[in-house]
Structures are given as structure tokens and as C-alpha cells.
């Protein structure tokens, strides 16, 4: 961070000499100037035979140096309202009203004029950096391209400026990284490149569309830290579009809450979090899972009951608490993806010792690529176990043939992450639910449909829905169907692989509630996989933390979320943003300290 500040004069000289090709709307801005005035912005889409209103009469102002968060669930119009400023609506969309960027009307601008504004006066940070960056060009080239579109610059100067920008967003060894392709960078670094590209022309307005949603919590923490630092240094106004109230609490000065295309609440960050007025905002805040919400000091009297991994010693198997057969038992399990062509074999999980007792819910937490989904899939025999022993309800499934596994299939169920992809789009959902019943119990006709209706009742869906197709259902409804199918055979063990991460918070809250209800009712054991500690905390009695294919800490839920012992768990916990600005400020300092410390170490 300190490097660019050392030579501010030199840094400016490359860039300030450059002649701007694109128009400079409204001249330079200082902090506190109003840069954007939006009035009665309405966005409509042509659907079927009529206009569908996605955003209705939205009005707000944005000052330079300010962060305005637009919050809402999917379908609330939060993204479309901002994309309409750039003229990036799909061809069926149309915007009316007024959006005034320092005296320039953006709504109804011609494409040629808009092209000068895009990337120059207004730039966007997209959600998924891997798809937003072009994979066949180096990242340096892509920054230079933006620069040279809007400025008369020679390639050498543009390169110098690009490296300067990359240093500003803390890309390690920017001269080296300049020639790297997007796939050679990590997810966090790609998002930094996106930010550098967005800041290249010193825009007046920066639109960040879910900038951290696709990132892991620890990476998200680093990006948020960077963005906080940048907002002090650039004089742009920032529109932050997100559904994560934790991120909002971390960044925003003011908040707009949108519901069904209408602004339902608009106020300062403090007001909205402390004193929400609209029922929708209240509901939204109530749905956000909080970490360690109900903790008394008494609970923390004993020594923490967790076991951690130490140098060379994997987490040992926890002692049996009851005499009954454990629902899932992994003993020194290793799962290996075999060599494919030139790609060497990959050990996705190693030395895993884990016990899930009957009727117990164990959470499995880790970042993407940590091997948690691999473990879940191995537990239902979708992946073979290379080493060790994996038993489910006393039945050893290591190295069993497909035929031998058939009786085992009756005893397990799995709920997948993406409810859109886990239901066959060509089958009515009733048939999807009934499939395991048909295959194992040979149920047909009336008996089958009776059972399917019972299952629909138990996940609180109307019976008439059995004849619907997956595309006719909302995300939450699809996930309920997924749960109903997994429970069809009344399994002893359920693997829930990120069942709520594709859902909106309020839907997530309802699905989690349903899950807890069903767990009490059916009494199945469950391995609940998630990247979100707050979600896992709600449902599980014990938590296992996974990092790079190893379990690093296993212990009681309460101890893990309050007194983690392993440094990785501590970092994971500190990175989770909490939906409370004051609380988050405290956590942020702690978090930044941890990030700084690690950077010093590495």
C-alpha cells in the first residue's frame, strides 16, 4: 500500500500529460460535489405481450466520495436500475426518467455518446471476474486497452500507467503480472484487476455490482479492505449493489432498499441498520444469520472442546459419545482425483477423521477448493475413496461395486447446492421426488402419488405443485423439492451440500427453518456443508473446519464460533462481515490486523 504513495508526483506525471480523447463531462469533481442526480428512473421490460416494470420511479442523489448501497433480493431491480445508467439494458428493456451526471443526461443518450461515457466517466466492477475478463488477452493488455480508448497515449506510457494502477490495487509484482492471463491469477487478484481497470480513467461514478459475491470470505475481506482504502483516495461516487447486509455494513454511507422495483426505504447506513421502518427492511435484516448470536458468558466457562490439527498430526477421530453405530464414520480417508492426460492426480482430501453420530448435524465449513464438497460426494459413494475407510451406518462403502451399493443407496440422501441444476428440467417435480421410491420400493400409481403428496406436505409445498416443471418454480421452491426428494426414502444420513447458498437471504432463512423442523421430525443424521459459518452455526451441533484438503479443527459449534483455536478458523471467523455498522467497524480493525500480519509473514 505504501509504494504508490511514495511517488505521487511521478505517478501523476505519466497520466496527467495524456490528452483525453473522450469527453470530460462537467469538469473535475471534488469530494462532496453532487455527481449524480437520478429522478423518476423507470425501467421496463417487454415480456410476452406487455411491459413489465422492473424499476419504478427511482430517485436519488450521489455525492463524490460517497458509497451508496442498493440492497434487495434477486428480481428487485437493483442491478437493472444501475445498468440503465450505462445504457446496458437488454434490447427488450427501456429506461425513462432522468439520470443527470454532472449536467449530462444519461437516459436516452445515443450509443456513440454512451461509448465515451462508459469506462471513462462511469465504470463497472462485475460480479464474476473470471467471466468479465477476456481469457485470451493478458490482464495488462486489457487495462491498457481501456486507457488507450479514452486517452491519446503511447503504449509505453499506457503500460506505465497500468502498472501504476496494478500497484495501487496491490497486485504482487505488477511488472510480472502485467503479462499474465486471467487464468493465471487467483480469484481475488482477478477482482483486483477488474478494480484497476475500472479506475483506469478516474471515473466519476463507479458501479460495483456484487463485487465480492463470487469470492471466498477471506478474499472478500481483503477486497473490502482495498475498496475502503480506495474510496479515500479516489474522488468517485460508488454505487454498491449487493444482497449481503454484512458487506453493506462494512462499506456503505447511505442505503437504498429495493423491493419489487420500488424503493421502500432510503436512509443513512446507521438509520437503516438501527431503526428500519419498512417491514421489508426489518424482515431482510431479521433473515440475515448472525454469528454467535445467543451466547452467554456462562457457556464459555469450560475449556473449549475442540481438537485442532498440529504439524504433521491430523485431527484425530472424536470419541464416540454413544454406543450406537455412527451414521457416518471416516477413518483416515483420502480422496484423489486421478491423473487426466498431463494433469497430475490431485489429492482433494487427506487424512480425514470424522464421525457423525445418529441424529446429529455436523457442519463442514471451508472455502471453495478446500475439498468439502468432495467429502460430501464421497459419503454418498459418488466418488471413490482411495485410502482409509468410510462407513455409513455400519456399512463399509469403500471399494464397493455398483451392485453392492444398491441397498446402501436407500439409507442416504443428498441435497445439492444449485436447485436449478439438480432437478431434471424435463420431468415434472413430482416425478423427480418419486424416483427413489419407484426405484427402491417399486411404488407405482396411487401409492406413489400418495407418498409424493405426503412429502410435498412435509416441505410445505402445495400438492398441486407435483405437476409443475422446475423452471416454473422459484429458487426456494426448487430447493424444497430437492429436500423432499432427498428425504423420500427416510434416509439415516443426509448430505446437505450448500443447500442455501444459491438463495436469497429471506428465502434462506425459511429453508433453514424448514430444515431444522424436518431434522427434528425425521431424526436423520446430517453432514451440512457450507462456506457460511453463520448458516452452519444455526443448524449444527458440531462443526468441522476444512482447509486445503485437511480438517484443521473439529469441535462443538459454540466453541468454534466463539473461541476458535486454529489460526485458520480465527481468520475465517474474523473475515465474516456482520450486518451491523458499529460492530463491523470493530471487527474490521481486528480483521485488517490479521490480514496485515499475514502479509508480513508471507
Amino acid at each position: 500500500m505504501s509504494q504508490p504513495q511514495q511517488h505521487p508526483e511521478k505517478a501523476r506525471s505519466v497520466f496527467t500529460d495524456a490528452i483525453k480523447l473522450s469527453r470530460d463531462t462537467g469538469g473535475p469533481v471534488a469530494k462532496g460535489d453532487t455527481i449524480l442526480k437520478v429522478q423518476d428512473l423507470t425501467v421496463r421490460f417487454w415480456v410476452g405481450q406487455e411491459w413489465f416494470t422492473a424499476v419504478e420511479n427511482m430517485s436519488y442523489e450521489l455525492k463524490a466520495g460517497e458509497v451508496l448501497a442498493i440492497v434487495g433480493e434477486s428480481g428487485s431491480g437493483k442491478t437493472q436500475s444501475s445498468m440503465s445508467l450505462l445504457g446496458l439494458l437488454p434490447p427488450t428493456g427501456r429506461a425513462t426518467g432522468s439520470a443527470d451526471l454532472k449536467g449530462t443526461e444519461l437516459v436516452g443518450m445515443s450509443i456513440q455518446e454512451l461509448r465515451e461515457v462508459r469506462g471513462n466517466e462511469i465504470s463497472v466492477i462485475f460480479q464474476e471476474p473470471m467471466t468479465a475478463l477476456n481469457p485470451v488477452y493478458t490482464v495488462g493488455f486489457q487495462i491498457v486497452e481501456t486507457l488507450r480508448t479514452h486517452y491519446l497515449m503511447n503504449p509505453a506510457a499506457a503500460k506505465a500507467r497500468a502498472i501504476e494502477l496494478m500497484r495501487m490495487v496491490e497486485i504482487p509484482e505488477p511488472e510480472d503480472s502485467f503479462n499474465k492471463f486471467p487464468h493465471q491469477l487467483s480469484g481475488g487478484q482477478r477482482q483486483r484487476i477488474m478494480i484497476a481497470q475500472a479506475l483506469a480513467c478516474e471515473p466519476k461514478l463507479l458501479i460495483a455490482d456484487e463485487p465480492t459475491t463470487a469470492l471466498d470470505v477471506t478474499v472478500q475481506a481483503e477486497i473490502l479492505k482495498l475498496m475502503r482504502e480506495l474510496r479515500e483516495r479516489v474522488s468517485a461516487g460508488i454505487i454498491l449493489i449487493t444482497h449481503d447486509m454484512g458487506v453493506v455494513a462494512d462499506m456503505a454511507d447511505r442505503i437504498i432498499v429495493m423491493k419489487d422495483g420500488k424503493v421502500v426505504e432510503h436512509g443513512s447506513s446507521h438509520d437503516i441498520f438501527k431503526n428500519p421502518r419498512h417491514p421489508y427492511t426489518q424482515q431482510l435484516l431479521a433473515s440475515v444469520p448472525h454469528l454467535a448470536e445467543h451466547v452467554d458468558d456462562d457457556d464459555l466457562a469450560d475449556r473449549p472442546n475442540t481438537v485442532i490439527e498440529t504439524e504433521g498430526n491430523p485431527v484425530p477421530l472424536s470419541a464416540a459419545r454413544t454406543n450406537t453405530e455412527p451414521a457416518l464414520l471416516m477413518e483416515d480417508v483420502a480422496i484423489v482425483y486421478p491423473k487426466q492426460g498431463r494433469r497430475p492426480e490431485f489429492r482433494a482430501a487427506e487424512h480425514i477423521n470424522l464421525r457423525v453420530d445418529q441424529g446429529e448435524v455436523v457442519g463442514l465449513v471451508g472455502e471453495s477448493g478446500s475439498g468439502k464438497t468432495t467429502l460430501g460426494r464421497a459419503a454418498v459413494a459418488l466418488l471413490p475413496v482411495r485410502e482409509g475407510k468410510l462407513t455409513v451406518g455400519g456399512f463399509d462403502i469403500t471399494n464397493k461395486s455398483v451392485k453392492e451399493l444398491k441397498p446402501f443407496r436407500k439409507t442416504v440422501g443428498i441435497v445439492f447446492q444449485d436447485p436449478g441444476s439438480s432437478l431434471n428440467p424435463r420431468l415434472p417435480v413430482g416425478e423427480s421426488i418419486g424416483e427413489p421410491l419407484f426405484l427402491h420400493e417399486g411404488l407405482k400409481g396411487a401409492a406413489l402419488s400418495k407418498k409424493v403428496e405426503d412429502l410435498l406436505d412435509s416441505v410445505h409445498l402445495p400438492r398441486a405443485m407435483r405437476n409443475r416443471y422446475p423452471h416454473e418454480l422459484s429458487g426456494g421452491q426448487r430447493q424444497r423439492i430437492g429436500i423432499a426428494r432427498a428425504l423420500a426414502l427416510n434416509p439415516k444420513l443426509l448430505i446437505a451440500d450448500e443447500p442455501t447458498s444459491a438463495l436469497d437471504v429471506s428465502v434462506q432463512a425459511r429453508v433453514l427453518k424448514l430444515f431444522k423442523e424436518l431434522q427434528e421430525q425425521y431424526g436423520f443424521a446430517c453432514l451440512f456443508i457450507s462456506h457460511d459459518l453463520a448458516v452452519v452455526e444455526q443448524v449444527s451441533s458440531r462443526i468441522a473446519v476444512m482447509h486445503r484438503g485437511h480438517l484443521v479443527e473439529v469441535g462443538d459449534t459454540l466453541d468454534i464460533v466463539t473461541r476458535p483455536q486454529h489460526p485458520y478458523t480465527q481468520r475465517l471467523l474474523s473475515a465474516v462481515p456482520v450486518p451491523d455498522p458499529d460492530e463491523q467497524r470493530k471487527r474490521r480493525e481486528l480483521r485488517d490486523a490479521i490480514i496485515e500480519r499475514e502479509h508480513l509473514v508471507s
Partner: protein
Amino acid sequence: MSNDNYTPKYSSDDPDRIEEALPDAPPHDTEIPVDTNDSGAAAVEVPETVADDEAYGRGEGVGEGQDVKGLSQGQIVWSRFVRHRGAMFGLITIAAVFVFSAISMGIGPIDGLWRVQTISSGDVINGGRPSLSIPGIGGATEFAIGANPFGQDSLGRDYFAQVMTGVQTSLLVAVVLGAVAITLGVTVGSLAGFYRGKVDMALMRFTDLVITLPVIVLGAVLGALVSKIPLRLNAGPELTQSIRENMPVILAVALGCILWTGLARLVRSEFLTLREREFVDSARVAGASDWRIITKHMLPNAVGVIVVNGTLLMSAAVTLEAALSFVGFGITEPTISLGRLISENQGAFSTRPWLFWWPGVFIILIALSINFIGDGLRDAFDPRTKKIPSARAMAKAEKQLAASRAAQSQEVAP
């Protein structure tokens, strides 16, 4: 919240609304007392009835929803297909051509209505010129069919009867070839894509081998074999005759056995993506066998690729058959095909062009129509292709919307 409150909403047809009507919908149905006089709760929470409507958004995909309400995938595809102008034009044209030829020349043993049912030579009338006259074309003043609407060839045979028989041959070849190629391509492609590994390796190398076979040469070899094999086997004249009469079917099967390769590769790649989808995994966890996964879960999802490419293959078959017959391979005497008609009369192009034009027009009609149908199917199966309405339709709808708004506000005002 009592049961009575939400049961009526179950009958609601809006899929995005139903979730809100669920018993567990409001998160506070257990936590807060329903008694709104409780000042502590009322200050923070709102009365339940308000909360029900206001506390929940409409959810994702709204607006798209009304497009697909209560329809199966097949019905959606069909309704999109019906709206595709090119495809409907193709479908109607090809149906008309088929019905026209069937009515005039009959199907199989059933005779048609045209006066010439057995094609035989006769007197050449008026130099074999077509007797068909349509007002406005060639100075004709009134519509007339005449004795030989498409003219006669040099032997005085009715050309209309020949062309109509040729149309049937072409359609027969297209359908048989399509069926053979789809069966082979789908089987090979789905097995290779599903099992991968060694099976994939073996099947795909075999596919590569088949791709190397030149179609024209194979057609020529086959044409020669058909006349030679019966002689070699000392077959009786009946067998020879039946082989000759069924020449179109034999040719179509043989061509289908070479042309399945493209489809096999497409189906394989489709299966490679489909097998990574989670619904395949969940079927496997449910205990479904490989056969069931392939037929019940994966094939219906690959049907778009299969249908689209199958149709395009059929239209290629029509032109291929014509090309083969034109160079003298493929269909031979006594069977009539459009390609053979062109080839036989190629010398007459400058003197009696209608002998060339009529079969040509029908080849174009058939191939073009099938192509249009394939195009329409491709658009119908691909959810990403959305029809962008004309500016006029959009403006009209906007006016209506404004009018209904005004009407609403007037209603509210008094």
C-alpha cells in the same frame, strides 16, 4: 397464523407468489405475538397482515414466470415453434408438397387421382411444352391445367407424373436416411459421452474412420453392386426386381450409415456436459441404473440437439440424393427420382428447359422447407433466443399501459 389463512392461496396460479403463502412464510409467526396491542412488539414489527404483503419481495425470475406458467418444456418449445414464421412456412410447404404428390400419384399400391398412373411413352403433343397456364406468366390469360401440365419428355411421357413420383422418392430417402442416421448417431454418441474412457475412445475412433469414407464413391460402389450382386448370387429375376424397386430405401440406409457421424459427435459433447449436471448425480444417488439415467434423464435433455440436427441432415439428404442420381450413381431405372430426372434431361436444358426446371423447383422447395423447419426448431429449443418485438408493438403496449394507469388513478380519485 391459522390454516384457513393460507389454504385459499394454494389455488393461486402464480408460482412466485405461492411461497409467500406458505405456513412458515413470515419469519415471525412464532416469535412475535399476534396481539398488536403489545406496544413492545408493535413498535418494531408491523401487524401481520401488512407484513404478509410488504415484507417479502416477488423473488427472482418474475415476469419470465408468466411466459411459462403451467406449461411443460415440450409445450413451450411447441408454442415458440408455432410463432416462428420461417418454420411455419416450411412446415406448410412441405406438407402441401407431400399431400399434392400423394393425391395425384397415390401412395404405394393405392392409386392417385391423376389420369396417368403408369408412366408410359406416347405422342409428343405441342413439342412437349407444358400445358399449364397461369394468368400473367408467359402471356397466358386464363388458368388452365391441360393434359400435360409439366409437359412431356422426348418419349412423350407425362412429366407431371414423373416429377410427383420423384418427389415421393426424395421424401422417402430423406425420412429413411434421417431415421437411420439419428438412431446410429444417438446410440454411438450417448454411449461415448456417458461412459467416456475406453468406450469413448473406441467409438470415437470408429466414428473418425467412418468420416473418412467418401460419400460419392460409396454411392457409386453401391450402385454398381446392386446390379452385380444378384448376378453373382444367381438370384432369380424376382429378387433382382425387388432389389431394384427398393433401391431408394437401400440407398437411404447406406447413406444413413455414413452420415451419422456429425450427430454422434454433437450428442457426445451434449452428454459430456449433461453428465456433469447435478440431476444426473442425484438420480445416481437415488439408485438409478445407467440405462435409466441415459434414457430417462439425459436423452430428453439432449432432444433439442438431436431433433435440430436430424432435420438438417434430412434436408442435406434430399440434395445428396439428387446429386448422386445426377452423376449417375444412386437411384437407377426403373425408380424415378428428382435427381435422375434432371440428369436424364440435362441435354435438353437449352431446348426444353421445363424438363430441368420442374424437378429443380421441387428439390429447392423440399430442401428449403426442411431447413426452415430445422432453423425454427433450433430457435424453439434454445431458450436464449428471444424474439425482440417491433418498435410499433412496444409503443402500442406502452400506450395501453398508460391508458390503464390513467383509468386506475381516476377510479381511485373519487
